[in-house]
C-alpha cells in the first residue's frame, strides 16, 4: 500500500497481466462534463532559440494518436518577448500540428514553474484537450507534475510508447528500474497527460506544405505576482561535447573491463569511429567516466545506428536505454550473458583483447577510405 503504481501492478501481474481497469472502488466512466475535451496537444519545449527535439518526436506520436481518434493536433508554445514562438509554430505544423496556441509574456522568458504552470493550466481549462503530451525532460517533468496536480488529473511519467485503446490514451512505461513495462490509462479524468522520454520515438518526416492557424492568449500575471526569481542561467560548458542521445555511433564499456585503465580502450575505439562513449551504471559509479555518459534506465536513452557494448552483461536497466539501436554489437567473455539475447552480432571473448583489435581493424579500413575520398 501507499506505494504509487505498485499495488495495482502487483494485482494486475497476479491476474496474469489481464485487463483490470475498472476495479471496484472507483469510477472508470468519463463524466458528462469532460466529454467535450477534444484533440491532442504537445507542449513545445524550447531553450535559447532552439526547440528541444523531443517536442518534434512527440509531434510525430501525437499525429498518429490524433489520426486514430479523428481529432486535431495542437502545439503549445509559452515564452518571452525574445522567443521566436511564431517560427516554432510554423515548424510545429511542418512536423504534424494542425494548430498552435501561443502565450507570450515577459515573465515567461526562461522557465519557471509558477508562471508556466499557470499558463498551461489556463490554456487547458479554456481549450480542453483530451490528451496533453510533454517531453520527459527536467522542464517537462517539473511542469507536467505541477499541471496535472493543479488540474487533478492523471499523469504517466517517462513513457516509451503511446497508443490508443478504445478512446483512451494507453501509455506504456518501464517500471521497477526497467524490469517490467506497464500500460497506464486515465479513464475518468481529462486531459490524459503523459511525458515521453527523448529518443524513444523517431523524428517525424517534415512536410513543408503543411501549415496551420495560431491562437494567442494572454497570461494574466505580472512579475511582482511571482515569488521565485531566476537570478542566472549558466549554460553547460560541455554542452556540445557529450551528445549521447543523438550520436550515430556509441561505444559503451561495462564493468567487465575491470578497471579505469582498461576503460580507455573504449575511448580509443570511439575516437577511431568518431563515436561517443557510453557507460553502464557500475562504471559511472566506480568513477571510470562521468555520470552523464550513463546509458540506461537511470541514465540516457539512446538510439544510434551502431552500438558497441564491451564488457556489458546486458542487465534490463541498461537494455531499456539502448535496445532501439539499429545494430547492436556485444563483446563479452560469457556466452550466456543476457546481452547476446538481443544483440545482433556477438564476439565471445576478452574485451581487453577484442577492443584493440577492433580499433585496429576500423582504423585501417577507414583510413583507406578517407584517403581515397581525399
Amino acid at each position: 500500500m501507499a506505494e504509487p503504481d505498485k499495488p495495482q501492478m502487483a494485482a494486475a501481474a497476479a491476474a496474469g497481466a489481464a485487463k483490470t481497469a475498472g476495479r471496484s472502488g472507483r469510477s472508470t466512466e468519463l463524466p458528462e462534463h469532460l466529454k467535450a475535451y477534444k484533440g491532442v496537444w504537445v507542449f513545445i519545449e524550447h531553450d535559447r532559440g532552439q526547440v528541444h527535439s523531443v517536442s518534434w518526436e512527440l509531434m510525430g506520436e501525437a499525429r498518429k494518436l490524433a489520426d486514430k481518434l479523428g481529432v486535431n493536433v495542437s502545439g503549445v508554445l509559452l515564452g518571452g518577448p525574445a522567443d521566436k514562438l511564431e517560427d516554432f509554430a510554423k515548424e510545429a505544423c511542418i512536423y504534424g500540428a494542425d494548430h498552435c496556441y501561443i502565450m507570450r509574456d515577459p515573465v515567461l522568458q526562461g522557465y519557471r514553474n509558477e508562471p508556466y504552470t499557470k499558463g498551461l493550466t489556463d490554456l487547458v481549462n479554456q481549450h480542453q484537450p483530451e490528451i496533453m503530451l510533454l517531453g520527459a525532460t527536467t522542464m517537462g517533468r517539473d511542469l507536467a507534475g505541477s499541471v496535472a496536480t493543479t488540474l487533478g488529473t492523471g499523469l504517466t511519467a517517462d513513457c516509451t510508447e503511446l497508443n490508443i485503446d478504445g478512446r483512451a490514451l494507453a501509455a506504456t512505461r518501464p517500471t521497477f528500474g526497467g524490469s517490467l513495462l506497464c500500460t497506464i490509462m486515465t479513464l475518468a479524468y481529462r486531459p490524459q497527460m503523459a511525458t515521453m522520454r527523448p529518443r524513444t520515438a523517431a523524428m517525424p518526416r517534415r512536410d513543408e506544405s503543411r501549415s496551420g492557424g495560431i491562437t494567442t492568449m494572454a497570461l494574466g500575471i505580472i512579475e511582482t505576482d511571482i515569488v521565485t526569481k531566476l537570478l542566472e542561467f549558466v549554460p553547460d560548458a560541455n554542452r556540445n561535447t557529450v551528445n549521447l542521445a543523438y550520436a550515430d555511433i556509441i561505444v559503451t564499456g561495462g564493468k567487465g573491463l575491470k578497471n579505469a585503465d582498461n576503460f580507455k580502450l573504449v575511448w580509443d575505439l570511439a575516437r577511431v569511429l568518431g563515436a561517443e562513449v557510453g557507460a553502464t551504471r557500475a562504471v559511472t559509479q566506480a568513477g571510470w567516466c562521468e555520470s552523464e555518459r550513463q546509458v540506461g534506465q537511470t541514465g540516457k536513452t539512446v538510439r544510434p545506428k551502431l552500438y558497441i557494448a564491451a564488457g556489458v552483461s546486458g542487465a534490463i536497466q541498461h537494455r531499456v536505454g539502448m535496445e532501439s539501436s539499429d545494430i547492436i554489437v556485444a563483446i563479452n567473455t560469457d556466452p550466456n550473458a543476457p546481452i547476446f539475447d538481443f544483440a545482433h552480432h556477438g564476439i565471445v571473448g576478452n574485451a581487453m583483447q577484442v577492443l584493440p583489435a577492433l580499433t585496429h581493424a576500423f582504423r585501417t579500413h577507414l583510413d583507406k577510405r578517407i584517403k581515397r575520398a581525399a
Partner: protein
Amino acid sequence: MHIVVCIKQVPDSAQIRVHPVTNTIMRQGVPAIVNPYDLFALEEALRLKDKFGGRVTMLCMGPPQAEDALRKCISFGATDAVLVTDRAFAGADTLATSYALTSAIRKISQEQAVDLVFTGKQTIDGDTAQVGPGIAKRLGWNLLTYVSKINAVDLDGRTITVERRAEGGVQRLKTTLPSLITMLEGTNEMRFATMDDMLRAARVPVRKWNKDDAGIEDITKIGLKGSPTIVSKVFAPKARSARAEMQEVGDGASVNDACLNLLQKIFTTHPTLEEETVDRLSA
C-alpha cells in the same frame, strides 16, 4: 528551522528479477531500502540542521514495515519520524499519494511550522518524479525540482537560493520559505551513523498515523479511489526473437579475424553507416 524529509521504502531494483513464465516481480529475498535519491535529500536537510539548528522530521507513507526505513534515517541524525499507514491508502497513484502526504505535512506544521520539505528527485521503483511537484502544488509552496546545490538560506529574511539542473545548463533561483525541494543524485555523500544516533534510532517512537491522524479531509482523494491512473497491463519487455550471430575467439589471430569479419558484416549490411562515418571523420 523545521525540515520535513519525505522518503519511500523501495525494493532494491538492482536485485529484482522477473519470473520468466508469469512475468511477475520476484520479491523474495529482495531487500527493502530507503529510496537512494531520498538519502541525498536527507543529507542536505541534516547539513542545514547542523548549520541552523532545529529539527528534521521524517515522513513516509507505506506499510507498517516501512518503519525500518524511518529508523534508518533517524540513525543518520533525523530528529523524529511519522509513518502514514492505513489500508485506505492502498492503490494510491502519485496524485493520491501527494494528497495524503500533503495532509500529513499540514498536520506536522501544526506542531511546529515547517520551513522546507525535501525529497529525492524520484524513486527507483516508480521513477515518476511526480510526488514532489504534487505536494508543492497542493501546499501552494514554491517548487524547486532537480536541485543540485543550496547556495544560501536566510532564515530571518525567509529566502533561499538554489541551483537546479535544467536542460543544457544550471538555473540559479531565489525564492521564499516555505518551499519544497527535490534533490538531484550525487549532490551529497551520506554521512555515517553515529553510535549515539543508532541507539536513539532504536528508542525513538516512530509515530504511526492512520488516515484520521493524518488529517485526511476527503477520503475520495486517497487510495485507489483518489487515483485517476489505472494500470491496465503489466508485462516483461519482449526478447528479440533472434539471438546474436556469435563468434568465439581464443588466441590473437582469431581475434583479428573475428574483428575483420564483424567490420565487413556491419559495413556491407549498412553501407550508409560507412559513408556517414567516413564523412564525419573527414570533416
